[in-house]
């Protein structure tokens, strides 16, 4: 199993979720994060004091998926989250050793 972790633009969440559902992804977890990257926020001059808004609001999505699904999932996220503008975000894939559904105790594949 793999844990796919993607950082995306906030307003793309619904599209990403809708792109994953047909693949059989039944769950995911979303976190509000701040991203620092090539995309620069405006330079703000707040009442005379200048500073660069370097941390921009992003969403981090974590989806645990079976290994054979991972390519499809990465592609689906990449396609649905893309706007083509700087700051679209990243997708990271980590190896996942175990998974367990708390309610039932099911493990691994059937826990997802």
């Amino acid at each position, binding site marked *: 199993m793999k844990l796919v972790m993607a950082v995306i633009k906030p307003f793309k969440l619904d599209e990403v979720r809708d792109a994953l559902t047909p693949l059989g992804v039944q769950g995911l977890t979303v976190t509000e994060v701040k991203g620092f990257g090539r995309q620069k926020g405006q330079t703000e001059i707040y009442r005379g004091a200048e*500073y660069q808004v370097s941390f921009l609001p992003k969403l981090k999505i974590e989806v645990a998926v079976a290994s054979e699904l991972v390519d499809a999932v990465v592609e689906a996220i990449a396609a649905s989250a893309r706007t083509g503008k700087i700051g679209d975000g990243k997708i990271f894939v980590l190896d996942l050793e175990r998974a367990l559904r708390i309610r039932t105790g099911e493990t691994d594949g059937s826990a997802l």
Partner: protein
Amino acid sequence: MTPWMRGAVLAAPMLTLAALPALAADEPKLDAGNTAWMLIATCLVLMMSIPGVALFYAGMVRKKTVLATMMQSFFVAALIAVTWMVAGYSIAFGNGGLFFGDFSKVMLSGIAWNEPFILGAGMTGTPDPTVATTIPETVFFMFQMAFAIITAALIFGAVADRMKFSAVCLFIVPWSLLVYSPIAHAVWHPAGIIWAWGALDFAGGTVVHINAGVAGLVACLVLGKRVGYGTDNMSPHNLGLAMIGASLLWVGWFGFNAGSSLAADGRAGMAMLVTMVAAAMGTITWVFAEWAMKGKPSALGAISGAVAGLVAITPASGWVFPGAALVIGGAAGIICFWASTALKKALGYDDSLDAFGVHGVGGIVGALLTGVFAYGMLYKTDDAEAALAYSGILYGNPDMLWVQAKSVLATMAYSAVATFILLKIVDAMVGLRVSEEEEREGLDVTQHGERLG
């Protein structure tokens, strides 16, 4: 002898006559209508401090200092209330010398609760220098207390995010007694020196706004810049709160300015009108200036402009017509925008929430333009000759601008020096500023052991 309440000497009987039977002319009586208005005007002015200034300021700081900022209004209100009762009121409004009142009203000794209040009662002269009202002294005392409170609260905007709470307390009590009360006496008491110069300050351009603004400027210079100033993001953590605060300031300011008529009369109505117009114009010019210069019209600009307009109309509010209010408010919006951005940046001080840039500069704009636009006939409706002494250059009194400038300079000088000395004393006693680590951690946790959210 000229300040605002002298208007009342003559106008109050005259206006009130409208609603009173003949005998009222002989001996002033309590008037329920005027008392009702002053009771509620007092509520409005107190609401300007808590929650008005508390919200206005707390919305503009970073999240880690929200509660500490609110305490700088809330707890200071409590401290000043007691200070004012114990001695502040007596220093300001007791008879006495040119610079401060005597101690006859300490602890409110002998306050008459059921008779119309006469300011300066016991003074003699020709013409009669006293100011007669138709409200009880308790109400006058409370109305003025609310002014003492808001003046104190305004200062701390300049040093947001870095002053010790113990230093706040130790500084503000003597400041109110030794800076606020004497200036109030000088400007608003018939025995005061600035009153004697003939300066016009209807509702506190010098006493409240220039005074607080200059004290704030001195304080932020003495304390130094916030850690990270100029590099860290110090943008307001919740402009929604600041917007509520600004709205309550706006509404409350009607109590401030129209209440300064001390009666629910025609002058109060006109004061309210010009206050509204100036606030609106300040909002509009600041926002348009910002839109033109920085590309976006901000909510922060709108509320700043509103307050700038309100500050500037304050000294003028009982003396000018709506057209003048358009000019005063509009000028204040642009000039305070410039002062809070370009000027501050150029000079490099860290007046965190622009206590000086808005209140100090706005107060100066207003005080000077009062010397231009004041129309003496606004209370002396019949005697054009005598009205000249209350008129600005536009209405034939070229000296007025200089008189106003003199009152501005005197207020600035005294406030700056006295504030500086008091801060140095407090610094020696407990230290003014929290440690760098505490500042990073935030005043809420380090000063009050609390946290928002």
